[in-house]
């Protein structure tokens, strides 16, 4: 629970941050704003992934599947009727004849994703460790197959394009704030403590009255909800969704962000998502051909990934639990100077 002082600081920080976003939105180029939006979307995805993988210790590889569900549901719902008739003529009439506003489509997208999480989670969450990882990966592949095959609803491999680019900095960062708030509330409640207990020792947790299934399901469904919303935001940013957009690589990518930042921490999720969105873009600048002493070296495409891989190994080598581990951001550093050493030590 936050003290009054902490609430004040948080409020001020939020206002400053939103103001800054507003300023940036009017000054930065579209390219840079897009990066800021992608950072936000990745934060939504990674923080929600941390709820299952980090806090609850349920290692899921299905996150991209929930993204896919959210993205498709929201895409189909929010597509303007005129376009819908053109792009998705085979939709069942009830679906073909509704157009939902963006906010509602985000929420429904998230809810449908959460519903899928409930369906798959109920049987699968009794598995543990890598067995669960494989089962959730299987879910991701099943979703991909369904999207590819149910082409009268999803247009199959062609994907749905021409989505309206609703997604902007306010939608993204508004959702980021909601996501972080919700996850933070959950983590700091009996539900979150139950999840932590399950992560530490599920047998002891069960012997202390914690219902394993309901806690795991809660983490899984809430994670899936935000994954669905994140997927929907992503779809309306890129303006096209297809089955390949949500493959195992995307899941792995999210897992990397989560582990690099620190799985058991919201702060870690934010840091991991931010870094792993920006750094690859920055590394692009290395893929330039250069001329040294008259010898011209062509640009080496793939170099940025190689450097990124090397950097990842180094990060993990020095910080096996991610950059911040389980540490959570707090305002203590503002208190008194003698506390500073304490916070950095926790780092």
């Amino acid at each position: 629970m936050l003290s009054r002082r902490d609430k004040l600081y948080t409020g001020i920080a939020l206002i400053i941050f939103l103001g800054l976003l507003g300023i940036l939105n009017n000054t930065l180029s579209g390219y840079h704003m897009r990066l800021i939006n992608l950072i936000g979307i990745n934060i939504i995805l990674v923080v929600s992934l941390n709820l299952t993988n980090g806090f609850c210790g349920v290692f899921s590889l299905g996150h991209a599947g929930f993204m896919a569900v959210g993205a498709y549901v929201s895409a189909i719902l929010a597509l303007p009727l005129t376009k819908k008739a053109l792009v998705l003529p085979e939709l069942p009439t009830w679906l073909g004849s509704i157009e939902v506003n963006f906010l509602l489509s985000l929420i429904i997208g998230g809810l449908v994703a959460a519903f899928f999480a409930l369906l798959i989670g109920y049987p699968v969450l009794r598995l543990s460790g890598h067995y669960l990882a494989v089962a959730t990966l299987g879910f991701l592949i099943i979703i991909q197959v369904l999207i590819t095959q149910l082409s009268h609803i999803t247009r199959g491999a062609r994907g749905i394009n021409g989505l309206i680019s609703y997604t902007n900095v306010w939608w993204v960062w508004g959702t980021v704030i909601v996501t972080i708030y919700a996850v933070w509330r959950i983590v700091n409640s009996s539900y979150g403590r139950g999840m932590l207990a399950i992560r530490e020792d599920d047998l002891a947790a069960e012997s202390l009255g914690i219902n394993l299934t309901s806690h795991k399901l809660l983490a899984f469904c809430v994670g899936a909800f935000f994954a669905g919303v994140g997927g929907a935001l992503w779809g309306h940013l890129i303006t096209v969704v297809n089955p390949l957009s949500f493959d195992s690589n995307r899941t792995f990518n999210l897992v990397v962000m989560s582990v690099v930042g620190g799985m058991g921490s919201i702060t870690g999720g934010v840091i991991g998502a931010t870094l792993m969105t920006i750094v690859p873009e920055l590394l692009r600048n290395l893929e330039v051909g250069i001329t040294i002493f008259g010898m011209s070296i062509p640009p080496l495409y793939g170099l940025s990934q190689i450097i990124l891989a090397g950097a990842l190994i180094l990060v993990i080598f020095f910080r096996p639990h991610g950059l911040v581990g389980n540490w959570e951001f707090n305002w203590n550093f503002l208190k008194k100077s003698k506390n500073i050493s304490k916070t950095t030590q926790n780092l």
Partner: protein
Amino acid sequence: GEQKDAAKDNEAAAGETIKVGAIFNLTGAQASLDGPSLNGFKLAAKEINAKGGVLGKQIEVISIDGKTDQTSATNAALKLAEEDKVVAMAGFSDSNYALAAGPTAQEAGIPFITTGATLPSLPEQVGDYFFLAPFGDDAQAYAAADYAVEKLGSKTAYILKDTAMDFTMNLAAYFEERFKKYNGEDAILLEDTFKTNDQDYSAQINRLKAMKTKPELLFISSGPSDCGIIVKQVREAGIDIPIISGDGFDTPLLIELGGEGANVDTYFATHTCLTNEKELVKNFVTAYQEEYSREPENGFAALGYDTMYLIADAIERANSEDPTAIRDAIAETQGFEAVTGTISYEPGNRVPKKSVSVLKVEDGKFAFVEEVTP
């Protein structure tokens, strides 16, 4: 990554350069298609610059890796439009990525020519700044169907298609439509599916072999990475009815992997025949060999090459570096002689009317059979 081709001193001499963006998937699953395309594209730019450039300026190709990832593709397009201020963009052999990057270019008002994506509805879906350099899937599928019916005399067909690719699904659909038009609704005896990189097609082949009435033709709708293996496995299973396909078969891999099997009645419709005796084609092949010390890997290399020339031609005709003027010039292109055929855009249609070449494998080489304009 991006690359600034023109040397610094060159730039100083010309005052400035004309920047053209290139987004290709140089890493990831699409790399084998897009890599050669970029090579062709850059080769053309180099040739143009050597001849003095366009409008008296050098062309600077700024190339970014799309990483076979839609997010990267759109980021790249936005970067090219806003940071690098290119006058035109080109790229991609797959419509999934073209569909991701295209709208960004459209919104920025910069013409985008896809070098290799062949979905005919792409320009319509993206907008008036989007063009195809190759013909559409409909053209090649119709050409294949026409050839099969008229020259091979096929009455019934079997279709095997890759469900994971937009391109293969469309190709199969257009072929089916045309083939049924000739031979009636029941002409397609069986339609079976696989997924990119499945590698093992024995189950499908077994089903084909077990069919009561054998089809007279196999239409295999696959991408370049699978075609050779499929042909090999089909032939190894002892099936030797004619196989026909689209430009997905236009890859040396068909011969390399298909082995003996590919020599048996294997046809495909594609953009051009690189063993063609035409001057333009021969020049391209030699220039490519000189620049990269290898044969053009596939037809996409030629398409990349043509696209650069197409853009340069449009800039020249527009006599301006204004993207909109260039767009208008591209739209007015008529009878532009390219390695992959003659390109003309009819008013309002941004898919070029182009001839289709039908090729056949003979003695481990591609042999030109005929050129059709469906």
